[in-house]
Every structure is written in C-alpha cells, then in structure tokens.
C-alpha cells in the first residue's frame, strides 16, 4: 500500500499492539488527539484509553513510569512530543533506562521504545527543531534509530518494539509526509544496527541518516551529472553503529563525507571520521569532511536555511573532496 511515514509508523504500532497486549502507548495527546502529528490516530479507538494513555504533561514521569511498567513485564512505548522536550526525561533515560540491565546484571532489562519527532526544515517554533542524537549515542545501553523513509520506518519501529534493549526512535518531521512509498501490509522487521547503501557509487561515500538522506541523494544526483559517482549510506541505526558497512564503503571509494543536521563539534560526524581514520586511513585519498549545521542554536524559521545543510552545501564539499 502506498503510504506516508506517518501512516507507516501508525500501522507498525497498531499491528504490534494488536498482537501483544504487553505493549502500551503513553504520551501527551496520544489518545483522542492522535498525537500532534497524528501518528497515533485511531489507536485509542482500537485499544482503549487503558492502553493508549494520555499522560499529564510530564516527560520525566512518562519515561519513569514506563520503566516501572517493564518491571512487571510490560513493553511500553513512550511518545515524547518533540525532541526539544525530551530533556526533562534525560535523567530517567541516562540513569535508569540505559543502565538497569547492566546494573542488575540482566535481572531487570528495560525493553522500552521512546519515539520522538526531531529535526529542522519544517519552519517550526523555537525548541521544535532539535537534532540532538549525539547526546543519546554516547550513552552505553541505548539503541538510537532514525528512519529515512516509510518502508524503513515501519520495519525499524517493529524491530525496535521487539528488541530487548531500550530504543530511542527518532522520527524526522520533515519526512513525515513529504513522500509516499509502497509499504507491505504485513508486519516485517528491518534489522537494527544495519546500515544500507541507498545509492551505489565508486568515487566517494556520503554517510547520512534521517532527513539528510534526500539531501544526500539530491547532491549525489547532481554530482553524477558532473561525472562524480557518489555512494550514499543510510546509517539507520546510529548507536550501536554498523561500522563494517561504513568501512567497507570507504575502502571501496577512498573518500568520505559525513552529513548531519546537528552541530558540528562533537557531533556523530566526529565519531565516524575518527572511525574511518582508525580503520581505513590508508584507503583515503582525501581527509574525511563533515557537512553539518554550524555550532549555533537552531534559528527561528526566517533564518533556518542558513542553518540547515542543503544539497548545494554538500555539493561544494563533494567538489572539495574530489579536488583534494
């Protein structure tokens, strides 16, 4: 069926919840309202307010309560309305969600999925455009997942829900409805921790994820018309990272650009560049480049374009790396 990412995520939630009553959904406005992006539309009618729970406006409590639910064998799904509002729950995520399996030597794992829309490029309000994945990728025990299309969104979410590890599932708001895709009706998994080559190439590797994938593909298309063959790698799971696919691609192409919409310093690009330096240095024909947002606060909508990495910015980096 042809559907948007919003519909694909909704279907994943609906199908998994229908098949297993350990799944509960909790968050702000997830019930009658169907979520501010309508991702959970119709679920309260299907599963009732006892399973699709509108919580009081409190992120720490939503995540904290979900932790307690896992103690009694449930598998809660928490929706944080925007990534910019996840920080009140940060203590619960860092100190407990990610830590309890290790802390109890396996006695109390936390099979919990935290879904949160993220990212700029949609002319949103202040605090509604953050992309702070790097904060979460540094926490041992967490899995951080970002889909870039409807098909992956459904499969990755189902895999996250079935995972025994806690997952922070970041949904790119820019891609929620931007394109439609054929998505199988039945439930399926897209495996976690596996990157995907979404465009093959031989001259350079662009590593990206989420809403940066369309940007990367656009730039790669333009580069092709100039005779440069760019490979685009969709990381999909940011932590733990599929390092093998990155290294294999860079060893093949000899050049790498990391593209992300988070600020540059201590962003995931730094980790990926270091990894390539450690594992593929002698394959490189040029330094690893990073195309990212600058190290500034996400601006308000009128200035958003200065911030957001564009295909043009990426293309300039492609020229730079090819001319090195």
């Amino acid at each position: 069926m042809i559907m948007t990412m919003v519909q694909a995520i909704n279907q994943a939630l609906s199908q998994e919840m229908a098949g297993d009553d350990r799944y509960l959904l909790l968050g702000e406005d997830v019930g009658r309202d169907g979520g501010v992006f309508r991702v959970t539309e119709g679920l309260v009618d299907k599963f009732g307010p006892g399973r699709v729970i509108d919580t009081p406006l409190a992120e720490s409590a939503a995540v904290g309560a979900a932790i307690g639910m896992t103690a009694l064998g449930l598998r809660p799904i928490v929706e944080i309305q925007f990534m910019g509002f996840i920080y009140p729950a940060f203590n619960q995520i860092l100190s407990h969600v990610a830590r309890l399996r290790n802390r109890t030597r396996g006695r109390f794992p936390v099979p919990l999925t935290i879904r949160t829309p993220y990212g700029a490029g949609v002319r949103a309000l202040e605090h509604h455009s953050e992309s702070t994945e790097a904060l979460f990728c540094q926490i041992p025990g967490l899995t951080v997942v970002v889909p870039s299309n409807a098909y992956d969104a459904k499969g990755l979410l189902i895999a996250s829900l079935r995972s025994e590890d806690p997952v922070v599932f970041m949904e790119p708001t820019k891609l929620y409805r931007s394109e439609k895709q054929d998505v199988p009706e039945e439930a399926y998994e897209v495996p976690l921790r596996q990157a995907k080559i979404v465009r093959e190439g031989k001259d350079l590797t662009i590593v990206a994820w989420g809403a940066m994938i369309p940007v990367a593909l656009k730039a790669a298309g333009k580069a092709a018309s100039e005779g440069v063959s760019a490979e685009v790698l969709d990381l999909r799971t940011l932590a733990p990272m599929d390092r093998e696919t990155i290294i294999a691609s860079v060893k093949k192409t000899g050049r790498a650009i990391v593209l992300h919409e988070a600020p540059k310093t201590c962003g995931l690009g730094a980790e990926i560049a270091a990894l390539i330096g450690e594992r593929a240095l002698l394959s490189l024909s040029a330094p690893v480049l990073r195309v990212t947002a600058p190290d500034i606060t996400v601006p308000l909508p009128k200035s958003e374009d200065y911030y957001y990495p564009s295909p043009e910015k990426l293309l300039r980096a492609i020229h730079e790396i090819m001319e090195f």
Partner: protein
Amino acid sequence: MIERFDPLKGERLQILNEAGEVRADLEPALPGEELRRMFGHMVRARAADAKALKLQRQGRLGTYASSRGHEACQVGTASAMDGTDWLFPYFRDLGTYITLGYPLEDYFHYWMGNEAGIRTPEGLNIYPFAIPVASQILHAVGAGMAANYRKLKIAVVATFGDGATSEGDFHEAMNFAGVFKTPNVFVCYNNQFAISVPRSRQTASATIAQKAVAYGFRGVQVDGNDILAVYGAAKEAAQNARSGGGPTLIEAYTYRMGDHTTSDDAARYRTKDDVLEWEKKDPVARFQIYLKKKGLWDEAYEKEVQEKAAEAVEKAVAAAEAKPPASVEDLFAFTYAAMTPNLKEQLTGVAASAKEAAR
C-alpha cells in the same frame, strides 16, 4: 485509622510513645511471634549497619549510607507488605531489604563495590535501589499503572527521604499517582536532613504528608520511630491500594542518627544535643519496652536475638568477601541483550590490559 489523623491539622499518628506506652485503641493485633520477628529484623538491621560502618573504616567496604535510626520506618513498612507486593527503594533501606528477605551478603557485596550484589534474587519483588534522588518514585508509579492494567491486587511501595520531596520527579510521581489512581504506598522517611540541609529548607509546608491533599489522595504523618505506627499506617495503605482505593503518602517523622554517608561529617551542621534528644526516642529501645510489657522480652531473649544477629552479619560478611571479583566479561556482557562487535573488541582490549597489569 489514617483518616483520623489530618496532617493539615498538625495531627500525627503515634501508637507507641517514647515511654513505651501503647494506645490500645490503635494497637495492631499482631501475634507475639510476628512482633518478635519484627524486633529481630530491627536488631539485625542495626547490627548489619554498625558492621558496614566498621568495614568501611577498615577499607573493606566503600562509601556507605547508614540506616541507623530508620529501623522502625524500614522494618515497619516492609512488614506491612505481602510477597506479591513490589518495593522501589532508595539507598538507605537496609532494614527494608532485611525484612523482605534479601540476602544480606548480597547487600554487603554491592556496597563493597560489585554490581552483582544488587541483582535481586528471582522471586523477590525488589527493584534495585535508586541513587538519583526521587527517580525511583516514578518507577513505582509505573509499576502501579501496570498493576492496574493487569488487574493485579498488589501494593507498590516506594521509599524516599525528605530531600526527595523537593525534586521534580516527586511532584510528577504524586501527580501521576493521583490522576491514574495507582495502588501505591509512598513512604517518606523524613529524617530531617538531606545531607546537611534541614527539612525546613526543603519545603515551606508544615508537613510533607499534607502535600498528598493537593494531589488528590490521602496523606498521613506518623511517628517514624514508632514501628507500630509505621506498620499500622503502611498496612492500611497497602490494603487500600490492593482493593482499588488508590495511593497514600505516609510521612514517617524520624531522625538520621548517623552521618549522611561515611564521607559526611554531620557535626558540621548539627549539634550533639539534637542527636542526644533523638537518642531518647530510639525506635529499637522503644519497641523493646513494648515487647517486655507484653511478656515477649527478657534479658535472655535479648541476648539470643543479639547473638543471632551478630552471627548472621558475620556470616554475610564472610560470604560477601568470599565471592569472586567481577570478571571483565561481566562489565561488558549486560550493556545490551547481546554484546555488540564494538564491545567485543573493547572487551578484548580491557582484558589484555588487565592480564598485563596482573603479571
């Protein structure tokens, strides 16, 4: 009983006073055997606590948070729980752990610096105690929501100190509990200090118990050095929770007899006189008088209980110290359900360095 003591009117539930006199109309009907068991737990908690402090000074145990003075709060609360109830404790809960049957050797093992000690044995419903203050109260609320969802008739108990009531998580937890009518029993050990900061600096409310009123459920302040009051309130609150009556906040008014932890020096912020005043209210001594009046205590019995406690403590220490050190593999094996290639690689590196260092 809880209804009869309104925190907004400054009323506090006390069944056993400092002189060991009992209010017959409120006295819980407990068989002598059970009373003696409770006394045994209190004595064991105190003995284990004193031992932990000694071990810390000898360098055999790490920084430790003493439970001295909290025996009535802890043993009273845990004695009101059933086997199917859940506990979400904090780091000052030795008597609670002992009463619920947690292996003392494991408790020591944790404080000696090994995570394995906090792995609750199967069959015991104790979530590992939380160190980040107040964070565990939310877990208890979520477990309460899960109990409602599964239609389980259980009580979910959370314990915390007075300092915790200043944290945002306390507010969020109370609010959720009221809204979702969770089967929670919240027991605040108000021991007057959060490290050095006195209770008066935590809240301008006259009591902590009265905060429950604003969240839409019952709160009661009890004498936290009176095990009968703590037990009576907790028992009633737990029964209320199990039968769908929702949450209760119990403020157990007590005093932290020791330093905050072995890294603290309470003499910097409170006087000896204060501590001596509270010595007179000692929860263990008070319960002893009660048992004596009931004909359940004499010198020979005391000696027997003390010896048994000492023996159990020594055995636990020996067992904890005999446990093998954590393996390097154990440090990596529980980060994810399955070890990632990255962790396997790092483990190899750490294990090699450890081997070299041992050479």
